[in-house]
């Protein structure tokens, strides 16, 4: 059951998916056999099949939505000969599984965006792709990792394709929750909900798969509250750890108005810095490549050929949107860390047995817990969530964060 190994603590979902993959495999095998006997006509799907043509994976961030979708895609493409002997598809080492997992399978299209949203234009291409027959004779799988980033128009473009795809096309959509997808899309998919994996399971996976020290693994798993990706990042990336430490010191700097403003400024600055770093890594290279492709002489200053300004501007716009997204994502991460901190304060204030996630700043948590009342802490958590919403609705980042630090100070 190798392809399911990365799905941590999702027993029921894995069961459901592997059953579906088995039925899908049976269907493909039957159709191939029918074709070999040259009995013309479509093999119909068995009535009791656990397979269907559109799936919607939901679950909190870090629960492994896209991992589940990729694993399922791999299982659908599995060509391990053991299948005929009754093995479940999804071995993890046959051609089909392997190429899917590394992202080179010809019949698996993974759509993930680094932009703010997925627009109508990109989606139309996707619909065209979905009507192709699979070249490998099994399934044409389209994995849409950020279905929540589809714009309304793009969602509507998808409707028809998701409702009645070509016979061998399977849609796998991923979104944080059902509410993030248009109701009309939602009703056309079979829904699978993933849960937040338990902290121990995450730590276990980090130790087993990434070879991280058990102590560190336990600490980062607890700190990220079951978000596998972030736990691994924290465990492996020194900069991520230091940024997190900075964020957790923020509640101490909110003594006066000036402190609030400075804290907000530094938070936004570090996010901007992050976006700039990402931009530096890729923007210049992309631009130079496009210039070369459009036929400009190498070197930054030469004139562009006539009629290429539009393409250059498109690229610049795309890069700008990516920078916005990076900045927002970084800020959002910081806010989640901050919310986790106040969650700990609340847990201490209410005397619950829930373990403290940010054990490294236990002293600060205790001090804050004894200096205010649970109502204050709740109001602060609300202010953080309100700030996340404000950022998502495009409020100026500095202003939104300042309003939040002010609210954190007031309690």
């Amino acid at each position, binding site marked *: 059951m190798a392809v399911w190994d990365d799905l941590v603590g999702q027993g029921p979902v894995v069961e459901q998916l592997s059953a579906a993959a088995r039925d899908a495999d049976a269907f493909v095998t039957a159709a191939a056999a029918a074709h070999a006997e040259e009995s013309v006509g479509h093999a119909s799907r068995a009535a009791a099949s656990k397979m269907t043509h559109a799936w919607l994976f939901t679950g909190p961030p870090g629960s492994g939505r896209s991992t589940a979708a990729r694993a399922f895609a791999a299982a659908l493409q599995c060509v391990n000969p053991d299948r005929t002997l009754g093995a479940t598809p999804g071995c993890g080492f046959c051609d089909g599984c392997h190429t899917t997992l590394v992202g080179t399978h010809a019949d698996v299209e993974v759509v993930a965006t680094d932009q703010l949203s997925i627009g109508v234009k990109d989606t139309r291409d996707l619909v065209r792709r979905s009507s192709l027959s699979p070249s490998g004779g099994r399934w044409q799988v389209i994995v849409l990792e950020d279905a929540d980033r589809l714009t309304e128009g793009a969602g509507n473009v998808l409707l028809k394709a998701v409702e009645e795809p070509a016979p061998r096309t399977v849609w796998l959509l991923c979104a944080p929750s059902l509410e993030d997808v248009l109701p009309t899309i939602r009703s056309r998919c079979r829904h699978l909900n993933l849960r937040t994996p338990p902290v121990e399971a995450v730590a276990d996976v980090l130790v087993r798969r990434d070879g991280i020290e058990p102590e560190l693994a336990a600490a980062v798993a607890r700190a990220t509250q079951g978000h596998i990706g972030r736990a691994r990042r924290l465990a492996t990336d020194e900069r991520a750890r230091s940024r997190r430490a900075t964020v957790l010191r923020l509640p101490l700097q909110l003594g*006066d*108005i*000036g*402190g*609030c*403003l400075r804290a907000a400024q530094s938070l936004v600055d570090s996010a901007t810095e992050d976006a700039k770093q990402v931009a530096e890594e890729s923007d210049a290279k992309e631009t130079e490549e496009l210039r070369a492709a459009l036929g400009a002489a190498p070197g930054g200053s030469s004139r562009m050929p006539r009629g290429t300004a539009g393409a250059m501007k498109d690229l610049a716009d795309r890069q700008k949107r990516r920078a916005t997204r990076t900045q927002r994502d970084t800020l959002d991460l910081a806010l989640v860390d901050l919310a986790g901190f106040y969650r700990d304060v609340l847990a201490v204030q209410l005397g619950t047995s829930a373990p403290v996630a940010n054990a490294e700043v236990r002293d600060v948590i205790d001090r804050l817990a004894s200096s205010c009342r649970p109502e204050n802490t709740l109001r602060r958590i609300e202010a953080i969530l309100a700030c996340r919403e*404000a950022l998502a*609705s*495009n*409020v*100026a980042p*500095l*202003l*939104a964060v*300042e*309003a939040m630090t*002010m*609210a954190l*100070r*007031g309690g």
Partner: protein
Amino acid sequence: MAKKTSDDPLAPVTIAVGQEGLLLDRAVADVVTAARAADADTDVRELTPDTLAPGTLAELVSPSLFAERKVVVVRDAQDLSADTVKDVKPYLAAPVEGITLVLLHAGGAKGKALLDAARKSGSREVACPKMTKPADRLAFVRAEFRTAGRSVTSEACQTLVDAIGSDLRELACACAQLAADVDGTIDEAVVARYYTGRAEATGFEVADLAVTGRATEALERLRWALAVGQPLPGITFALASGVRAIGKLATAPRGARTGDLAREFGMPPWKIDRVRQQMRGWTGDGVAVALRAVAEADAAVKGASADPAYALEKAVVIIARVAQSR
């Protein structure tokens, strides 16, 4: 007003430097008028960089059979091609008698070599900079009336500048029109008969009024800003930076020097002084309340509310109220 280094408009070479179209045109008109006064048959040639090829200048300045006076005007001299500049430079050093060359140059780094050469050869220079400060525009209006030989009150000038805005041509036209239409002293009532309203209102003006607690004036200015089509996010940005500046300075050490503060907060020193004035009446909690109100307004103008104008008004009222909370 245009500053003149030498007052003889018939100097062999005149350079008009700047980007204010009206003043450039006036500099040209001065020269042409003077030349026509000296010789009514003066030939005026207007050239642009694309009509001035290498050699054209030599052709134009070569002595004519009838020894007539000529004024050669070169517009956008900063855009001249390198070859043409090679032509023009030697001429600057040795101008031909009876020819008046007027170079209109935008200033700035582009085509600077030509400008430097002209300055070095001792040409007459007329400065035509864009007027950016409100005080400059007031002075301009006053000078316009003075040139027309009319007396004007300072309130009238202010009303006129408010109503017309920053376009110098429009201001000059309005002055000419008033001087032609009205007898006697031009005062506020006269101006108000022809010009009302406010052509320009910025978010920063709204913010400055709001943070000093003048709610009524701030609301009025906000309405003007909305009416002249100021982008709404710009207004919330101005409000936010106004309140933010107060928040920053409020917690700064009391005895700190203006220069140090300016460096620390990244503001110009005059801004520090102004914010210090505005700070009276503010409390720390007031800053918190005001900033949150602005954040709400920002969300509203970006689509969270059906009536962004109301959201802005609400924020302005809140700011003005907390500005007097002490």
